């Protein structure tokens, strides 16, 4: 999804002065999809933050006498193959998924901005950098992330590194496109003519005004990172057990799909709600920052 979105978001206009930012926020608050997304995603964030209060059991506490137990008053969403409370694991799993998503977004933002800004601003390096990025983007992102995570070894940090490597070239392309547009604007030319330094022009005048497309892109990167982390955990190259992640809870339930379908049900719905919230947030940001790209009329 992010690839297709990335093809469009580079056309976004730039964020401007504080007054304009506050007007942007006012329009965002009035945007129905954005607010729906904010509420959905906000609920998941709250669930992750308050996991200790909300979870009725410890996520790794076994009750072998109640393995694959159906939902009851004690275990609201049943238990898994080790007799662990599914609801508590899903609640704690939110922490891992959101943490990984956030780290991928941060690293992607930094790396993508550095690479994209260098390619867009330093003309001599543009061709070389972008051909390397094209080569990296030729790999299906999820396959590249799987191969990297499997090679580096199953751990949370390796999942973050693998997903960053898979999605950073796409972010770099967005930033480069935006920098190429802003670079030619009159106020940038004026800053150069006034004697502003190379780095000052890049960071103060170009990058600050290229942030809107990056913000939209990173929202979608957050969404695909949550999905991709679930995939990696599902196939066993995510954070190792017994750490609860939405992907490995679904994988645990896969073996008992006939006798205990509830194990896989909730984590999938939770992933869906989280990603839907982020997609709506991204749509809202894009609609408000660039009405030409509106999906919602």
């Amino acid at each position, binding site marked *: *999804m992010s*690839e*297709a979105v990335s*093809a469009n978001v580079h056309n976004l206009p730039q964020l401007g002065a504080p007054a304009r930012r506050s007007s942007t926020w006012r329009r965002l608050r009035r945007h129905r999809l954005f607010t729906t997304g904010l509420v959905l995603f906000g609920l998941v964030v709250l669930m992750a933050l308050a996991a200790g209060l909300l979870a009725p059991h410890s996520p790794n506490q076994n009750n072998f006498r109640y393995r694959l137990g159906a939902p009851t008053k004690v275990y609201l969403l049943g238990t898994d193959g080790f007799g662990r409370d599914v609801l508590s694991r899903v609640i704690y799993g939110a922490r891992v998924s959101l943490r990984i998503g956030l780290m991928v977004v941060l690293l992607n933002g930094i790396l993508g901005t550095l690479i994209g800004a260098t390619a867009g601003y330093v003309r001599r390096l543009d061709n070389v950098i972008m*051909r*390397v990025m*094209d*080569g*990296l983007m*030729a*790999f*299906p*992102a*999820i*396959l*590249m992330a*799987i*191969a*990297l995570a*499997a*090679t*580096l*070894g199953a751990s949370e940090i390796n999942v973050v590194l693998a997903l960053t490597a898979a999605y950073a070239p796409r972010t770099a392309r967005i930033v480069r496109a935006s920098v190429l547009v802003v670079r030619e604007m009159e106020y940038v030319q004026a800053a150069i003519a006034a004697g502003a330094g190379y780095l000052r022009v890049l960071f103060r005048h170009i990058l600050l005004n290229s942030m809107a497309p990056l913000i939209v892109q990173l929202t979608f990167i957050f*969404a695909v990172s949550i*999905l991709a982390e*679930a*995939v990696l955990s*599902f*196939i*066993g*190259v995510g954070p190792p057990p017994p750490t609860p992640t939405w*992907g490995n809870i*679904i994988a645990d*339930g*896969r073996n008992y*799909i*006939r006798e205990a*379908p509830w194990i*896989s*049900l909730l*984590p*999938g719905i939770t*992933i*869906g*709600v989280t*990603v*839907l919230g982020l*997609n*709506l947030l991204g749509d809202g940001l894009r609609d408000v920052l660039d009405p030409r790209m509106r*999906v*919602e*009329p």
Partner: protein
Amino acid sequence: MARYLLYRLLTAIPILLVVSLVSFLLIFLVPGDPAAEIAGPGATAEEVARIRQSLGLDQHIGAQMLAYYGRLLHGDLGQSILLNRSVMTAILDRASVTLSLTGLALAVSLSLAVVLGVVAAVKQNTWVDQSAMTVALLGLSLPDFWAGLVMIYLFAVLLGWFPTGGYVALSKGVLPWLTSLIMPAVALGMAQLGLLARITRATMLEVLRQDYVRTARAKGVPEHRVIDKHALTNTLIPVVTVMGLIVGILLGGAVVVEQVFSLPGVGRLIIGAIQRRDYPVIQGGLLLTATISVFVNIAVDVLYAWIDPRVRYE
């Protein structure tokens, strides 16, 4: 057109160089000794040395790279350590399953997406539009492997309409082949359905505001003819441009969906290789998938240039 094709093929060379280099370097990312990792904790020093030699890891990196590119030029992706056979043969043996799955997923997502997108645009701002776009958003948001598991539970375990997994070759009949692939194809194509439906709707809305559509309506052309004949053809052009991208995403997604539905395709081969640390298969699978994506993108670009001649002159 031939000149444009040549231009696109030439631009693919640096991309393929990066793709091959990344695949080559993958094994060097293994923490510690890759040969020891493959051999496992109980292996003897001789076994580790044998694996190191068979992978060429006992040579200098320059020599390894030369040997690697030499093999690639002959279409040789190396030897699988655990299958004890050529990686290329192992992949080709399973390619028909993966190509069937991705082809069907593309067909399902494209056909449904065009219907959803067009209906949503024509019925803009109605409950039909909102329902269609909700379906599209859900498709984009739900994990494909989870949707596959839910489908297995509903349509295979509870209703018994489809098998829980496994693949029936096309040579054994179209219906059994379709029955074995329809659930995996829907699960795999779901996200692309969402993406394509949104693109179709947005483009259709833009096309419906064009002067020539207004002219056709003013001339009294029936609405269904305006949609079918005038608007739809132009709506499909942007959809064609994202096809190359989508094929790449589907090939990547097939890795997990094949695992869920126990389909003996390339994806399952790669997952098996990951679990058993068979790096030549991982590298070969990665390289071949990326190469296919590159050439599909070229084919789509050429198709696009054929549909819209302006592209050739840019």
